[in-house]
């Protein structure tokens, strides 16, 4: 009998802890970046690099073009080595969403998965080799009723320059 009651108690505790782990405001917002595959670029040419990010469930972050000046946009900063330059950064359009805290004002946000595309260029005199591109993604996250201070996550991937 003791064994049966113990099993039931364990099941109750397990499900109870699942519920309690989801108290609103208890979770910290997260944005993660998926690893970037092999990137190769020829000297005097350019290549496109897709960076995939994921916003933690229950959160959203402002898009690159939020709807008001007072909102902090999502911004990617890349610091390439001398052998590469960033020719362009393409951000996805934000999803227009209304929230409980602003039912009459739609905000432009990213939630779930989104991709930023960077166009990297290698000059004609770029030396062949593998180079790290480092940077950071700055964002400001909110949930359904409150917001968190802006944060940054590191961004890094490797680019191989090959001769023409």
């Amino acid at each position, binding site marked *: 009998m003791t064994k049966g009651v113990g099993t039931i*108690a364990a099941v109750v505790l397990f499900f109870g802890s699942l519920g309690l782990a989801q*108290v609103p*405001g208890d979770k910290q917002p997260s944005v993660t970046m998926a690893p970037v595959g092999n990137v190769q670029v020829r000297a005097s040419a350019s290549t496109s690099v897709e960076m995939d990010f994921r916003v933690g469930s229950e959160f959203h972050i402002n898009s690159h073009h939020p709807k008001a000046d*007072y909102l902090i946009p999502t911004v990617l900063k890349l610091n390439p080595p001398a052998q590469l330059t960033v020719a362009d950064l393409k951000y996805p359009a934000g999803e227009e969403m209304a929230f409980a805290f*602003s039912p009459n004002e739609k905000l432009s946000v990213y939630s779930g998965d989104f991709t930023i595309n960077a166009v990297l260029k290698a000059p004609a005199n770029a030396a062949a080799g593998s180079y790290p591109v480092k940077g950071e993604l700055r964002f400001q996250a909110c949930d359904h*009723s*409150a917001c968190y201070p802006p944060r940054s996550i590191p961004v890094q991937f490797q680019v191989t320059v090959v001769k023409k």
Partner: protein
Amino acid sequence: MKRNALVFVVLVGAIIGMLAAGKYLDRARKHGPLKMVGDVKGVQAPDFDLATLDGRRVKLSDFRGKAVLLNFWATWCPPCKIEMPWFVDLQKQYGKDGLVVLGVAMDDTEPPKIAEFAQEMGVNYQVLLGTDQISDDYGNVQYLPTTFYVDRNGIIVDKAAGLFSREEIENDIKKILASSHNPGAAQTSRAAVVRAPAPTTKDAQ
């Protein structure tokens, strides 16, 4: 037989408990965050010495005898923007009864930009420039808006993390206005808090 009956009763009890917890959490998700009271309720509000937008210094202890609504906010926080006109109205309505609204701006922005934002919002209450110290003292305030309701003796009566309705805010204001100023009681509470560990956001839940 007796054993089966006991297992049945425990099982039914567990299912009812889980359903009740699920309903409660679902309601909390739909209507906003849970109020974080717990450890901070009844605690002496930590004193602070912060700069105002016009360069003056303000201490919480300057307002002993008043009921203080201490609101942590930021210019980049849309839910904070929703509350601000309510605080303006409530300051007008209850100011004569002893309510003092203090807005603590947790921006990294330059003070003139905060002042411009506050002016656009028609803010009629004092805006103070937040620091890491005050954030730490009040339990590492990261979730904005967060509001502390401090009674006339400097005791935290309630804490609300996230956006709440105007009605809920007004109810909390009535609670702190209902307190009577008792300097002796405040001294006792302050002494007690010195020995207590600083409250944290998690503790408060």
